[in-house]
């Protein structure tokens, strides 16, 4: 019944717009790799990242001992400690303002309120419920979703239109909440050393902040950079768990991935998503193995009736 409706709806969508696309932030790694050698002495680039587990602990110790003692280390240590929550929010605030400069909010207050309620409930089930969470739907046909540090999360109208029920929305928002609580984008900024360069000027002042802008690069380009594949798989697992914790059907996010993988024929609307994320089929494969039979006995709500449908 539901599926039938969905099928017909998808058919209409395909017929009308030739359809659609993909999810969130991206290709930062290459740029970081390109910039690192210029900015750091050769031994140090390994420090901000955890040393791979294959390296025995004794050798890790040696690597650390071999580092020359110089002022650079002090700043590296600060980076490992990470920015404060206030700094994190200031960075997210700037990125969110820029993203909205590229694509404004859909002018539908009920839609925005609805998405904030679902998002706030899902985020309240994470380990960072105290962040000032903000959610929004932005005016673009692209299929994607974006997260910025500190709790700013945006879903495109193109992706929203693909959703069939509240559990699917919860899954998508949960994926983005995952990026925020694990600080995936902040870690990239830390690795690139850009964060250290301007951290003194980081405050959560309202309005445009030039110092923060220097840290995040041009405009909202940071949201078009790729995270590590593992960060995406991790966010998928978190999205599934947070929506299940919130009382929803755990299969909302997998359902969206399945839909996107299936309907992504028009490369335009999914181009950025597919460029910055592993293919939905690969993500489905990973989440399928991770979920296994764990959710067989955990029933949840889909709330298809309450789901707010855009005109």
């Amino acid at each position, binding site marked *: 019944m539901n599926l039938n409706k969905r099928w017909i709806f998808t058919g209409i969508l395909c017929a009308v717009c030739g359809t659609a696309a993909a999810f969130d932030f991206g290709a930062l790694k290459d740029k970081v790799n390109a910039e690192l050698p210029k900015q750091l002495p050769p031994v140090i680039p390994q420090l901000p990242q955890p040393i791979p587990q294959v390296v025995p602990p004794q050798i890790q110790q040696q690597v650390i001992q071999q580092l020359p003692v110089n002022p650079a280390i002090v700043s590296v240590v600060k980076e490992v400690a990470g920015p404060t929550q206030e700094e994190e929010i200031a960075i997210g605030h700037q990125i969110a303002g820029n993203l909205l400069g590229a694509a404004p909010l859909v002018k539908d207050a009920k839609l925005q309120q609805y998405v904030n309620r679902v998002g706030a*409930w899902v985020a309240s089930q994470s380990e960072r419920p105290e962040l000032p969470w903000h959610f929004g739907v932005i005016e673009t046909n692209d299929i994607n979703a974006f997260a910025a540090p500190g709790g700013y999360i945006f879903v495109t109208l193109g992706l929203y239109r693909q959703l069939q029920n509240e559990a699917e929305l919860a899954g998508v928002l949960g994926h983005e909440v995952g990026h925020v609580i694990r600080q995936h984008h902040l870690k990239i900024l830390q690795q690139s050393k850009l964060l250290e360069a301007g951290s003194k000027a980081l405050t959560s002042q309202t309005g445009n902040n030039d110092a923060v802008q220097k840290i995040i690069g041009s405009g909202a380009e940071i949201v078009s950079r790729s995270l590590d594949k593992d960060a995406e798989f991790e966010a998928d697992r978190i999205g599934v768990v947070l929506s299940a914790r919130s009382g929803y059907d755990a299969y909302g996010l997998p359902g969206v991935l399945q839909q996107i993988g299936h309907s992504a024929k028009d490369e335009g609307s999914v181009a950025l998503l597919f460029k910055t994320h592993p293919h939905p089929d690969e993500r489905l494969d990973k989440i399928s193995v991770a979920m296994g039979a764990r959710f067989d006995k955990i029933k949840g709500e889909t709330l298809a009736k309450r789901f707010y449908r855009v005109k």
Partner: protein
Amino acid sequence: MSVMKQCMAASLGMLIHAMAFAGEPGVALKVDQIRAEPFGDAKVTGALKAGDKVDILRKEGGWFEVKVAKSKGWVRMLSIRKGDAKKGGNEAAGLLSVASGRAGTGKVVASTGIRGLSEEELKAASFNAEELKLAESYAVNRAQAQQFATDGKLVARPIDYLPAVK
């Protein structure tokens, strides 16, 4: 009058067409069992092997009811890929063009003419304070979120995070 007839005929045609489509096409991604009910411990009534074509009839939780050849049954949703094999080929071509950098040209406009969100646009974006203020005005506090959950009969429950899969 004749226009009306034509319309009715067309509607009827569409209806028949819709009925002929019993379900959405899908392909089995891997070997899996078909069960009598949407539960992991339900009776096994058949098996799927990778590449088997199915018709997806409906969804319930993490399960699809599928029609395979002449039998019906329930299979784990994540063992199925939506679409048919042919479509898969098209998608592969789409991915290739993305990989070749065509997506980076900025010509990523949807076929409808309504603009998409390209890397160039994101890079060139400037801070929109007014819009951000509007976005922040929709914030919901925890008490409101809890009320919203209660209204939807959503009950929070403890569930551990899932370990990474190699």
